[in-house]
């Protein structure tokens, strides 16, 4: 039991920050994000017997956190949000960089599933395999979603230049 608690503590130390960041961007307030983080690790404690079989701990934790998030929004009868709420409430870039603002707009306009996949890759730097595990989809779908997202972003970002020129 002590070793199990130790491994859970280690997981908490290593990943609670990034999990909290992931949850906080998708929650209306920090208190909810904190609660969901606690729920996530409570679920980890409940599934302690599965720990030895977990090959991708980060992906496993993100999967649980995402499940908790989905359950939270299901109870409120709202769809699972991507980080769009956070994009809207986040302060403007310090340098008022037009390109950053345009990119923020472009990401916000992406379909939810593309945005979610892109964020897991760019924000959390999860591998394709890990993203597939978190979202419970095939790796091929992860790759095609990421490619579509980048293609759309590139298209949006190059449009103004073309119209200006």
């Amino acid at each position, binding site marked *: 039991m002590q070793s199990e*608690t130790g491994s*859970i*503590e280690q997981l*908490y*130390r290593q990943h*609670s*920050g990034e999990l*909290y*960041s992931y949850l*906080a*961007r998708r929650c209306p307030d*920090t208190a909810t*994000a*904190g609660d969901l*983080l*606690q729920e996530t*690790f*409570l679920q980890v*404690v*409940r599934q302690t017997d599965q720990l030895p079989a977990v090959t991708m701990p980060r992906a496993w934790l993100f999967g649980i956190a995402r499940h908790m998030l989905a359950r939270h929004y299901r109870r409120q009868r709202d769809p699972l949000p991507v*980080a769009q709420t*956070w*994009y809207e409430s*986040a302060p403007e870039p310090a340098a008022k960089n037009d*390109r*950053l603002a345009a*990119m*923020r707009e472009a*990401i916000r306009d992406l379909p939810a599933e593309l945005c979610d996949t*892109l*964020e897991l*890759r*760019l*924000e959390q730097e999860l*591998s*394709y395999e890990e993203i597939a595990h978190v979202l419970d989809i095939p790796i091929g779908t992860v*790759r095609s979603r*990421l*490619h579509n997202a*980048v*293609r759309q*972003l*590139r298209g949006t*970002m*190059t449009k103004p230049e073309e119209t200006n020129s």
Partner: protein
Amino acid sequence: MKPDILERLLMDRALKRLDPDTEVLLTDYLANDPAAATQARELQETVQLASEVVRRPAPVVEMPTQIHHLVWRHRAEQVFALAASFVIGVGLTALVIHANPRRENVAAVNPPPLARIQPALVKNKIESLPFWSNQRIYLLASAAANSKENAQ
């Protein structure tokens, strides 16, 4: 190289998920193909810019550093579930026992045979009942047993 394959490789390269050997080969290819090199640069810039946007710091709060309370919460839940199961089990058992008293107890509360109490009344009753009725047969049997006891 086919444009769709090239694009796929450039995408994976921009997303930093291209294996090193393929990346070396692709870099060599791009050195000889300026149009593909431009496409690669644009994709890389797009991903770089998107990364800057999504990696902006989230609000920070102080998080508890101890996990023990979660372990204790889980144990408390388990104990509570066990206690609840025990209470429900005991309750159900008591209900079943209450609803189905033992056979000997039922026999104990049964009245003695009617024939033993008032033979004359029983005789009248027997005559008034239909010939093959269960009640008549029961009363006859009781009366017979009673007279046997009396004879002894």
